[in-house]
């Protein structure tokens, strides 16, 4: 059945198209033809320069790193969402379910309150604290959630909820104390790609892409978990080990995405479901296709956010995504249901 492969090619073509449009669109519009020319020139093709030097600066220094960050973040969130859904056997799971969001948010808020401005490899304190906060929150949840009297998955989910609530209280307190910096914390909570640079991309991309590829290499374990943990064990999956590794990888991908873009909701929840509606539950197909779809969705959402005067991209993903998703839920095309 070559369907997933055909869909992947189609998705990659769509991604290339939205990347070009995403780079072209903005407060200073660059013609799509010029955009393609600039991009090809940057890739080393001998293209005649027919555009203004400012257009090249805008494309290469501002738009391209931003659009590529959207590609990496969108793909990473979708892969992490698919992984958490499969691992926790819960269609409601998203990349933030075990506390990455609340940990990263608290980290970012604390960074905003620290008066010292340190730039580390082009990344602000906020990015570093958000990344560390996201990882630390899940590490705590994983340690506390295991070994209790509850079933492993129930324990993890409830622990994630409890730790998340605690961190949310910390975040609320930090915001209350933040005074004039409140807006900066808010913009992290709503997500946005306007802070992207080549340097932030260079740090986030290897983590998000490397983590996603490592998850794809363990698709077998995710497939085994479809029928439950006991069934997965009977099918040759070392459940405890694979659960730890996959949780760690998905958290790493999520934290890398969140560190550069703040909390962008919806993509990690919806992209895997949209893909499953068409190709079924096989993680070998779901993971790569969800990555492509997540990238396309976030590039488009960021483009819309930019054209509407830099509104938070998380607002756009929800406003566009939710009605679209609802419509799909009601029609259930492709023979698969949610």
């Amino acid at each position, binding site marked *: 059945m070559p369907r997933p492969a055909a869909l992947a090619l189609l998705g990659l073509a769509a991604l290339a198209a939205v990347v070009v449009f995403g780079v072209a669109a903005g407060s200073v519009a660059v013609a799509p033809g010029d955009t393609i020319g600039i991009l090809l020139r940057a890739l080393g093709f001998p293209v005649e320069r027919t555009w203004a030097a400012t257009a090249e600066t805008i494309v290469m220094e501002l738009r391209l790193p931003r659009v590529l960050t959207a590609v990496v973040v969108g793909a990473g969130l979708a892969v992490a969402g698919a992984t958490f*859904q*499969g691992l926790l*056997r*819960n*269609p409601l799971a998203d990349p933030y379910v075990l506390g990455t969001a609340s940990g990263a948010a608290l980290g970012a808020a604390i960074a905003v309150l620290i008066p010292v401005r340190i730039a580390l490899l082009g990344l602000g304190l906020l990015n570093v604290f958000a990344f560390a906060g996201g990882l630390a929150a899940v590490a705590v949840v994983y340690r506390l959630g295991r070994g209790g009297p509850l079933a492993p998955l129930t324990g993890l989910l409830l622990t994630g909820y409890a730790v998340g609530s605690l961190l949310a209280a910390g975040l609320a307190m930090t915001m209350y104390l933040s005074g004039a910096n409140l807006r900066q914390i808010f913009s992290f909570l709503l997500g946005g790609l306007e802070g992207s640079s080549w340097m932030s991309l260079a740090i986030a991309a290897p983590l998000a892409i490397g983590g996603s590829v490592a998850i794809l*290499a*363990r*698709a*077998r374990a995710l*497939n*085994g978990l*479809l*029928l*439950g943990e*006991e*069934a997965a*064990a*009977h*099918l*040759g*999956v*070392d459940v405890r080990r694979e659960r730890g590794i996959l949780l760690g990888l998905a958290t790493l991908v999520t934290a890398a995405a969140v560190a550069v873009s703040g909390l962008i909701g919806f993509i990690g929840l919806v992209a895997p479901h949209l893909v*499953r509606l068409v190709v*079924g*539950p*096989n993680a*070998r197909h779901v993971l790569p296709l969800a990555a492509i779809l997540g990238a396309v969705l976030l590039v488009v959402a960021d483009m819309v956010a930019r054209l509407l005067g830099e509104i938070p991209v998380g607002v756009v993903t929800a406003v566009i995504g939710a009605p679209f998703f609802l419509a799909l839920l009601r029609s259930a095309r492709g*023979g*698969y*249901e*949610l």
Partner: protein
Amino acid sequence: MTATAGVAGVAQPVPGTAPAAPTVLGTAPAALGTAQAAFEDVVVAYRERTVLRGVSLTIAPGERVALVGPNGAGKSTLLRVLAGLVVPRSGRAFLGGDPVATLDRPAIARRLAAVPGQAALPFSARVEEVVALGRLPHEDPFRGPRAADRAAVDAAITRVGIDRLRGRDARELSLGERQLVLVALAVAQAAPLLVLDEPTAHLDLRHQVAVMELLADLNARDGTTILAVLHDLTLARHFFPRLVLLDGGQIVADGSPAAVLTRERVRSVFGVDVALTGGAAAAAVAATPTGAA
């Protein structure tokens, strides 16, 4: 596949499906090295509670064995020890001649296929996709299923007789149909030993008999060794030539149905008075509760 309900919902045997004359095995255990599955003085305890108290059992290749006994007797735990999911406090389990403790999970999965319990699927999945999960232990972790894997899935679906269910959403099937899909998954796994934990629970009479006949056929024609936990003594007695009766974590009887299920033993183990009707070829257990044991 026809079955008529007898008195009090007890299945009467279907003509032509009577098992071969039962052979008494197990009293003289084969060498552990040639056994399909074996237990050597296995003791399992969770904290204070001892679940298995020194169980020794040998199952030869090609056998069809039912584990019977009251709730909490340790039947399911015995299966879990064999699959390496429970580590005994003392004693050893063997699969295909090797101690289970020395085998990793994929190696166990290639020697023992378990029909999974009915789990709620978190996502919609087609019947053939569920059956294909049985190939996971054979699959290349990076390249995924190959042509041989797809052929094995098709063959398993046909072998179990569920071609008509292809393309259906596995979540929309009846319990009986779903059980056949799960058996097909285990058949696709192509392990020499098939274990089942109460494969007929919650099934109607027709599907109970269908599953039992399928197991007998897999055993007879493909040579698959079968070890099943059963609660229905009538089905166990009718479809299995060898019964192992567990009570309180110990084997209290092992042998042919006629030898194991005597009226006195059933009364002492289950606390229920039964009428054993028919001979070896036509056996039914009609139970009359006798009150507290």
